[in-house]
Structures are given as structure tokens and as C-alpha cells.
């Protein structure tokens, strides 16, 4: 897995995105993405609940996805 230095949230500018926030952007949008969203903005742009995304993150972690390490 390549090391990624995430930019601030493209939508609200939040800096220092958490490991889970970076991981879920890479997982959903793609490992080459340069646009990162914080959890709240990702939920907003997808028009889903924050909890739905947190559930997905847990699912990926349980599957051993290294993007969340």
C-alpha cells in the first residue's frame, strides 16, 4: 500500500483528517484520488448518514483492509 498524505477536506477545509477518513476516501473514491472529504462532508456529498459510513469503515476493517491501518 502506498503512503498517502491527505490534503485538507476539499469541501470544508478541515485539516489533519483521521486515518479512517483518509482510508474511506481511498476506498470509495479510489486510491489515486487527490480530493479528500472529512467524514461529515463525505456523508453530505453522498447524501447518506455519517453512521452509514462509519458502519462501512468497520466492515472494511473487519475484512482486513490495509487502507485503514
Amino acid at each position, binding site marked *: 500500500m502506498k503512503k498517502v498524505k491527505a490534503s485538507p477536506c476539499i469541501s470544508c477545509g478541515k485539516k489533519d483528517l483521521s486515518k479512517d477518513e483518509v482510508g474511506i476516501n481511498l476506498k*470509495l473514491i479510489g486510491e489515486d484520488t487527490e480530493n479528500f472529504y472529512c467524514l461529515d462532508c463525505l456523508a453530505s456529498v453522498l447524501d447518506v448518514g455519517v453512521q452509514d*459510513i462509519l458502519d*462501512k469503515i468497520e466492515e472494511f476493517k473487519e475484512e482486513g483492509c490495509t487502507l485503514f491501518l
Partner: protein
Amino acid sequence: MVIYADNAATTQLDTDAFEAMKPFLLENYANPSGAYSYSKKAKLAIKAARKTIAECINAEPEQIYFTSGGTESDNWAIKGFALSDYDYKAVITSQIEHHAILNSCYDIERLKHPVAYLPVDRKGVVATDTLNRYISDRTGLVSVMTANNEIGTIEPIKELAQIAHSHGALFHTDAVQAVGHIPIDVKVLGIDMLSASAHKFNGPKGIGFLYCKEGVLQPFHNGGSQEFGMRAGTENVPAIVGMAVALRKNIIEMEQNAKHLRRLSEELLSILEASNVPFILNGHPTNRLPGNINLSIKGKSGEGLMHMLDLKGICVSTGSACDSKNQQVSHVIQNIGLPDDYGIGTIRISLGKYNTEQEVKRIADILIKLSSL
């Protein structure tokens, strides 16, 4: 509300099939091999189901063997051939078969049976010229799927079977995606063995059948004398009954369903084409399963799109997956030679007879939005 667009994975059980199954779960649950009168209804139901299924593919009832599904049927066809072939003749299959075929072939290779894996063209077609190049009089079996489960391409089965027969080889087809969706006549097509699975045509899960001409295979399951002594084990009567009802209904409604699915597919593709989403429709442009839309979107992650669609309540599948370390593109997508920047972005939308125009519009609109992220 969930939009289910993964009908190549499984389909909704038809309500008529479900109703037909119920009495054999609750009232007439006797073992059909029982010698008492109470078993008679189950025994007759199996007989009637076998006749119905045979009629649906223009076979004889005694050529239909009930199995647990497509995977077992495929295993039986490939390994059954190898077990009954003492001359170690070669098997020829294609590189884009389902893993039930491919893994069975890898298994018989360990038993020293030579196996060749035919390449396909960009549309996923196994060309007759290709088979002609590989086949010889040392070939015992050719197995090519009727229609591909990922990209929907329908293969030239009749022509391939003719080539196999001209070299004295048997012809098997994995028709799991095709039965109940496109016309199948085993006599016209010249098929010696055919695998099918009920849950792909609105029947129950855990049941399927292998059509097999007489004298071609040895028993695969050993035990009792069920299935003409060829496949031992107490029959799954409710599932057999449900499969027959579902298949007959799908055959009757085939033309109407295909028309509906083609219209929905055209609608979805026209919305995508009108957008700026750079995509490729994989598989044969016209000779493909109705309702199969396999798309590769440039620069996107198919797995990511699938999960985002899931968050939006839309079920599709992907042609790429993360194995926790790397993004892997499916063997089918790899073998059709798709450019790398498209391959990873592959998703399969497989519509079924219950999908609506409204659902298709929603899928297209959301896919366009997600592709812009």
C-alpha cells in the same frame, strides 16, 4: 428502499414457484424413495418437474439430473468426464469460464489430464477459428459457457459444438446465466452436457440440474439409487418443484422479459452516454444477455463505486476487488484486454424482470454523480 440490480448473482424467487414449493415443505414431506403411498406425491412431483425442465430445453426427461446447483453440475461434467476417460484425452475450455469450470479443470490437470484454455477476443467471444487451432483427435471434451456471467457475451455454442463433434469430442456448456433468459434447445445446438442453476432464473437456491446424454458420464455422488443411480442423495423435492415452475414461467415470458430488459438497458446507457462519464460497455455490443450492463469507467475504482452505490441502497457487483493489499481485476476483464485505466473501474449492473424504468434512471443518475467525485 433497496434497488436490486445484481440479478446475475441471484434472482428474486418467483411467487408462483414459492407457492408450488410450500406443500412439499409442510404437507407432502415424505422421502420420495419411500415404499409407502405417502411418498407418491413427492415421487410424482419429481417426475413432473423433470418432464417440465426437459421440455424447456428440448431434452428427454431421463437426461435431466437434479443437482445442488450450477457449481455441482460443472464439477460433475468436468471431473466426471476425467474419471470416466481412461485415455487421458484433453479438455478444452475458455479463459473466461466461471471458476466452477476453471477450478475443476485445474483439478483434473493434477490427475494428468491435459487442459487448454482458449483466449477470447475483445468482446469476450470464443472464436471458432481459435477452437479449430487448439482441437485435435486427442481432445475428449470441449466446455464453453453459453453466456458469460460478467460481461454477458453469448458464445457461438452451435458452431463450437459442431467443431468438437467433428473431432469426436463431447461438448459441455455452462448455461447457468443463459437458461431461462435466452432460448436453449440442446438438440438444435448439439449440446451433450449442460449445467443450470435455479436461482438464476427466479427459482430457489441450492438446486440446479445437469442435462447429460446417455452413457456420457459416470455417477458423481455414490450412494443410493436416486437420479437413475447417477446422483445419490435424497432429492430436494420442494426446490425441484420450485425450479420447474420458475423455469417454465421464465420460458413462457422470455420474449416479453427480454424486451423489457433491453429497453431498460438502452435507457441506462443512453443516460450515461449523454453525460461526460468516460466509460466502455464490455462484452458483445448486441449478442449479449438481456439486462447485463458491464461498464468500465475510466480512472475510477469499481469496488469504490460498488460500495458507494451500496450506501445509496443500490446493489451491483464489481469486476475488481481489493484483496486487502491490491486491487485485482477479474480474470474475465483481464482476458478481454481492457486498458488498465478502465479495468479497475468495472462494475456489473444486471437487471432483472422486476426492475423498473424509475429504478434504472436512479441508478444512472447516482452513477453519474459518483463518477464525478
